[in-house]
């Protein structure tokens, strides 16, 4: 009994809204869509496949927000990285293309990081600017043309390939979330990220290398966005300048609903995963319910509003 009490004491209701919400919505769709194939393994796996890129971006964003910064440019990084990878793969092997894409993401992340960590410019403004800058770069990289990817190895690794019957995108989701959670909760780096966002002056007083942390999280966000770009490219066997354009709000919502604070300090990788799955499940279920596009948008907006309100409302002191 004592153990249950202690468990309940440690359970922060606000932090766990996403899990409750996920369960509630899942049950709701399971009941109302019981005859449509919503619960089929095919459809449930589809939800994971469809949310994989967003989940990967969300992991990067959790680190950035926890450090007290924000990255608005990750959507543009997705497009640039995917295009870089696709273009490189026209001449070189999949491995080189993948490395090029990840490098592109890290470089853009480092640019963001340089302005934020060294020049101490507000990350909101810096990444707002680079968001536009690199959206333009993505357009000019191939003059708006879409680049097909015919590389077999790539298709297997990032597209429709599977290992032991599990689709590669599911494996990527699991791997990135597991690694992200491990680093976030169980390494010194993760502890320092969170401390920096909570109270940078305190962290600095305790000799945490705050500047290095800020740079690192933005590079990490760039790398995650690049990986998401590769996942997208695998899904559509090509790269296009519009990839990632629509993801900004969805990923931010997923991360915040998942329990990461907008102001920094405390966050959750697993929560972000469920936030992302929640968004994907919502899209999926509302389409299967046969709602018109306008109805889908309204309902989705209302549900997100409710979830955000519950998870951000400060408890009465």
């Amino acid at each position, binding site marked *: 009994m004592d153990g249950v009490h202690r468990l309940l004491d*440690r359970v922060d209701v606000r932090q766990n809204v996403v899990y409750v919400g996920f369960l509630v919505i899942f049950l709701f769709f399971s009941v109302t869509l019981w005859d449509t194939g919503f619960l089929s393994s095919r459809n449930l796996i589809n939800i994971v496949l469809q949310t994989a890129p967003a989940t990967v971006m969300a992991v990067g964003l959790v680190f950035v927000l926890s450090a007290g910064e924000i990255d608005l440019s990750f959507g543009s990084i997705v497009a640039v990285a995917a295009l870089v990878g696709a273009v490189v793969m026209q001449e070189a092997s999949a491995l080189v293309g993948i490395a090029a894409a990840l490098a592109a993401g890290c470089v853009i992340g480092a640019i963001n990081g340089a302005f934020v960590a060294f020049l101490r410019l507000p990350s909101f403004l810096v990444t707002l600017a680079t968001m536009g800058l690199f959206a333009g770069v993505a357009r000019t990289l191939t003059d708006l043309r879409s680049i097909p990817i015919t590389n077999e190895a790539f298709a297997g690794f990032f597209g429709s390939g599977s290992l032991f019957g599990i689709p590669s995108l599911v494996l990527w989701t699991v791997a990135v979330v597991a690694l992200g959670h*491990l680093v976030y*909760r*169980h*390494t*010194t780096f*993760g*502890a*320092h990220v*969170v*401390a920096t966002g*909570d*109270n940078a*002056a*305190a*962290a600095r*007083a*305790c*000799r*945490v290398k705050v500047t290095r942390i800020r740079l690192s999280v933005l590079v990490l966000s760039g790398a995650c966005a690049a990986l998401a770009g590769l996942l997208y490219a695998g899904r559509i066997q090509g790269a296009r300048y519009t990839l990632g354009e629509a993801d900004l709000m969805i990923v931010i919502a997923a991360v915040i609903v998942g329990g990461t*604070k907008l102001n920094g*300090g*405390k966050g959750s990788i697993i929560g972000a995963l469920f936030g992302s799955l929640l968004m994907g499940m919502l899209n999926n279920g509302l389409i299967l319910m046969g709602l018109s596009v306008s109805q889908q948008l309204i309902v989705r907006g209302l549900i997100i509003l409710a979830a955000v309100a519950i998870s951000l409302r400060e408890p009465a002191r």
Partner: protein
Amino acid sequence: MPNVSNAPALRLTDIRKEFSGLVAIENCSLAIEAGEIVALVGDNGAGKSTLVKIIAGVHPPTAGTIEFAGKTVQPTTDANRNDVEVVYQDLALADQQPVYMNLFLGREKIKRPLGLLDRRGMIDEAQALVSQLDVRIPSVTATIRDLSGGQRQGVAIARAFHWAKRIVLLDEPTAALGVAETARVEEIIKTLRTQNLAILIISHSLDQVFRLADRICVLRRGSQVGIRRTAETDKNEIVSMITGLA
């Protein structure tokens, strides 16, 4: 060769600090023995915080020497950083983190094979530390945000105590606390003395100074006015030293 084992934990000799030509501190000479509490008093702008920062290694002195246990040091370099711990006025605590993570902030314990955080180890060590100093908090896993001002102060002092090899500097430790909490924190500070640390406290409360300190160092307008043994002086003398009015 100086007899290092008998040397005071901290010795300042003729410390002078200028900021762009403005003299902030001059002719400050002070020695603190291990196990001794010295109070640093003076009016606003007297230079108390500046002196603390110089000892802590935030600013190098313009002139003068600093010795830790007889060895001349530059506190600004990393090698000497661990000799001194500071408890700042704003406490430098991460509000959303538990007590034990704050105690180990920047110096987290890790487990061998993979280098992952050793939370269990940190919790246990934190528990021992908190008991030793009798800091009364619900648990070392409690979040800082949920603690009272006095409890937070206790945590900050415990952290300084745990890591300091020689010297602990406290800047107005009970300025924001009520009577009961002030008494609690003063108990904790007195415990520090038994651990053989040299303690320097900035305080504007002469009552507190006379309760806690063995000696009192008075600054006025950047200049050291004098040092007195608490037992050999009284409030009136100290006040006249602070204000400069006889």
